[in-house]
């Protein structure tokens, strides 16, 4: 198919949005039409994407193909042309987003069918896809930013989808504020680039920047740091990650689509997109890698002690995004994008699987009118008997995320860690980043297995009568899961490392080569070879296995109490400390202290106290109090208004006399 048909991929979801939106307003009960239109447009868009991909497969373009749609604003110094860019990178993203997006849309048909806002839900979901595709395909920063803002808006709408609950609306608000901070960074970066280069087109930036700007200079460093602030907001990195776990308040397919597979990876995509700039700014790259590594381990420790199945996955997403940034920060842009792709597969699978579990739990509780928490893994246990398909698929995804070969996550994660280690030869600080990444890998394997064990193994804790109602999800939901399961297993094939016995080797890397070559010339990827390489691989596999085994054993070592009977969370400090020093210290010398730290210090104090309190609420509070001062001055007394007027007048008059 001719790549100039690219606009169809955006137009199709937009038509879906219009149809579903109209139905939501006019005829919300027409669920059958919505169920066909919603996923249908996405499948069609995916088909177009595949067609274009197939057309370019044989002869990939050297230069990005830019298709101007129309000159949105075009005069003097303020041009914004809406143009779409097709190149190897945007095609990869396009395939992943439309492909995974289609599967999640299909899943949603089953998951949301009972919801009265079915049509509205699909309208939002389609609209989200429109903006996500604009983000991916935009040929310049402003166009990308339109998509960037748009996905934020849809995310905000979808997090608060069940707006009747206050917590959900609050979560939407939090996501909103944090993303504003990030957007500010992105905007400032855009202005710095516009000042220094006079263009915001990606293609022109890539050619102009290396000749115009000094490598490692202040301009490019500042621009990339602000750009990364934007990425950190959108992709939930320290210190702006706080919104993502709360965003799980939305429906589960939303979590899978937006908060795992697509939108949150936009930051990684943007860094890869502007790789030339980051390659020119070693300091910024190190910051990216460092923040990524810290986020990876930080979120992983918090994940150790969560009981809400979606919260575990949320912190896991934050942690995995940290990996991607560690990759792109180590100049391994291919590895970052590779992990983005495999993560989209297995994390979407995990979220949809958890959706299937919650669906079952919800039905069980609904049947008996119980008000227990359907998302608390302490209320689950032994579910593999009731949900066998979901269990097997989620287990595959867990192995993939833990990094067990030959599952997809192993290859991508290993490549990232190897690149970080390789850069250590030049900048020793990267050894530390590598160590953090490796430690995070251990924790990842541990908490994922803990979650799986508490959910699927052991005794069932749902309740005697409720148990009768647990059942596997319908085919419309398990179907997408199976496809994702296959992808999670074999996804690594797109970029197999050289040491792997069978070809194709470095498929993704060779495919992306034309896009990433300018960056690679400035800052080459350094992957260790020979003995070091094999030692690293061995260590990675060992870490994954140890983590999984430890996770399984410590979790099932003693019976788990259901959430209702579990000790109260409020007085936990004393309780936890007692258990921590007397009972569990000798069970595990490494993991348990980390649990305590993660729970008490990191989650309670850092996450909720410092970042929420001082950061998000604090800055909003400071602005509010400044504004309050303004309202106090607005006393209603005219005399005071005149005095303020005259202060200004005296200032202005005296400013011209000197």
């Amino acid at each position, binding site marked *: 198919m001719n790549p100039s048909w690219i606009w169809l991929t955006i137009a199709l979801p937009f038509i879906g949005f219009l149809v579903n939106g109209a139905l939501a307003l006019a005829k919300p009960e027409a669920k059958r039409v919505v169920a066909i239109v919603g996923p249908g447009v996405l499948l069609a868009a995916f088909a177009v994407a595949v067609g274009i991909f197939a057309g370019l497969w044989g002869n990939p373009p050297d230069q990005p193909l830019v298709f101007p749609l129309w000159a949105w604003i075009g005069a003097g110094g303020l041009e914004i042309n809406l143009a779409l860019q097709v190149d190897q990178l945007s095609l990869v993203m396009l395939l992943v987003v439309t492909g995974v997006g289609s599967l999640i849309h299909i899943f949603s048909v089953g998951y949301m069918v009972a919801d009265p806002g079915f049509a509205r839900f699909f309208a939002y979901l389609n609209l989200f896809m429109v903006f996500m595709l604009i983000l991916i395909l935009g040929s310049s920063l402003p166009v990308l930013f339109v998509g960037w803002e748009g996905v934020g808006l849809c995310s905000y709408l979808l997090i608060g989808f069940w707006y009747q609950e206050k917590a959900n609306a609050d979560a939407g608000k939090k996501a909103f504020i944090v993303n504003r901070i990030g957007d500010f960074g992105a905007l400032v970066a855009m202005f710095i680039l516009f000042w220094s280069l006079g263009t915001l087109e990606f293609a022109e930036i890539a050619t102009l920047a290396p000749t115009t700007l000094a490598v490692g200079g202040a301009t490019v460093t500042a621009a990339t740091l602000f750009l990364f602030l934007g990425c950190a907001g959108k992709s939930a990195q320290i210190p702006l990650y706080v919104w993502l776990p709360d965003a799980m308040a939305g429906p589960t397919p939303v979590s899978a689509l937006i908060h795992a597979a697509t939108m949150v990876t936009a930051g990684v995509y943007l860094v890869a997109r502007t790789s030339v700039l980051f390659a020119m700014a070693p300091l910024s790259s190190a910051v990216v890698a460092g923040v990524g590594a810290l986020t990876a381990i930080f979120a992983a420790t918090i994940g150790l002690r969560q009981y809400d199945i979606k919260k575990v996955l949320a912190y896991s997403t934050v942690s995995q995004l940290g990996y991607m940034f560690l990759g792109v920060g180590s100049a391994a842009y291919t590895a970052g994008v590779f992990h983005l792709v495999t993560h989209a597969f297995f994390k979407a699978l995990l979220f949809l699987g958890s959706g299937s579990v919650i669906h079952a739990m919800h039905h069980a509780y609904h049947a008996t009118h119980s008000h227990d928490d359907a998302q608390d893994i302490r209320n689950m246990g032994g579910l593999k008997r009731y949900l066998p398909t979901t269990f097997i698929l989620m287990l595959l995804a867990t192995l993939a995320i833990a990094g067990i070969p030959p599952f997809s996550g192993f290859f991508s994660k290993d490549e990232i860690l190897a690149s970080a280690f390789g850069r250590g030869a030049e900048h020793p600080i990267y050894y530390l980043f590598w160590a953090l990444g490796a430690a995070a890998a251990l924790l990842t394997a541990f908490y994922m297995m803990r979650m799986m064990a508490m959910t699927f193994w052991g005794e069932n804790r749902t309740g005697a009568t409720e148990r009768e109602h647990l059942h596997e999800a319908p085919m419309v939901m398990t179907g997408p899961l199976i496809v994702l399961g296959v992808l999670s297993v074999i996804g690594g094939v797109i970029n197999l490392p050289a040491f792997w016995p069978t070809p194709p080797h470095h498929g993704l890397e060779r495919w992306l080569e034309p896009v990433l070559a300018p960056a690679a010339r400035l800052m080459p990827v350094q992957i260790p070879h020979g003995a070091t390489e094999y030692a690293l691989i061995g260590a990675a596999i060992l870490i994954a296995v140890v983590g999984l085994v430890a996770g399984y054993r410590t979790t099932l070592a003693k019976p788990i109490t259901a959430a209702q009977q579990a000790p109260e969370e409020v007085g936990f400090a004393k309780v936890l400390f007692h258990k921590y020093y007397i009972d569990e210290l000798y069970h595990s010398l490494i993991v348990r202290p980390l649990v305590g730290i993660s729970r008490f210090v990191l989650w309670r104090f850092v996450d909720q106290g410092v970042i929420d309190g001082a950061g998000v609420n604090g800055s909003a509070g400071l602005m509010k109090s400044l504004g309050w001062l303004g309202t106090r001055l607005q006393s209603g007394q005219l005399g005071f208004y005149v*005095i303020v007027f005259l202060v200004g007048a005296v200032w202005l008059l005296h400013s011209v006399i000197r």
Partner: protein
Amino acid sequence: MTEFVFYTLAAAAVLSALLCIVQKNPVPSALWLVSTMFALAGIYVLLNAQFIAAMQVLVYAGAVMVLFLFVIMLLNLGHASETDRKRGPVVLVAVLLAAGIAAALFAVRDTSVASLAARVGAPEVASSPLAALPGAGRVQSAEAFTNPIASIARPMFETYLVPFELTSVLLLAAAVGAVVLAKRKL
């Protein structure tokens, strides 16, 4: 002699103005303002603007201020009020700010007719097509001394015809507005 008269009138104007703003009772306050206006009318004569001086007395002191006094009487406000004059630190702030304004405006104290004429009559301006523009040149005709009313009326009805007509809209708007607000019921 002229200067002596000027400074006498200036002192009277300043003194009246000060009394106007410190008087407790609104009626004397208004009368002191009238006094300032009269002093200014005298200065206008010194500045060779006899017609304006006459208008000052007729329109300002005669009509506008009478309207003020009329309203004060109508509302029965002809007595001192406790809360009218401010006290305390706000007085200091007010005086400082007023002094700040005055200090800035004093920067033009050294202006003289000669210095202005030298500047405006700069060759670049004089030789430019500006000379043809209304109000660009200085009126130095003998007419100004023999027939001051004509010398105001001519620019007013020729060059400034548009603004003059605009004042008719302004007065109409004021009349309509005042009537609307003062009507007993809408």
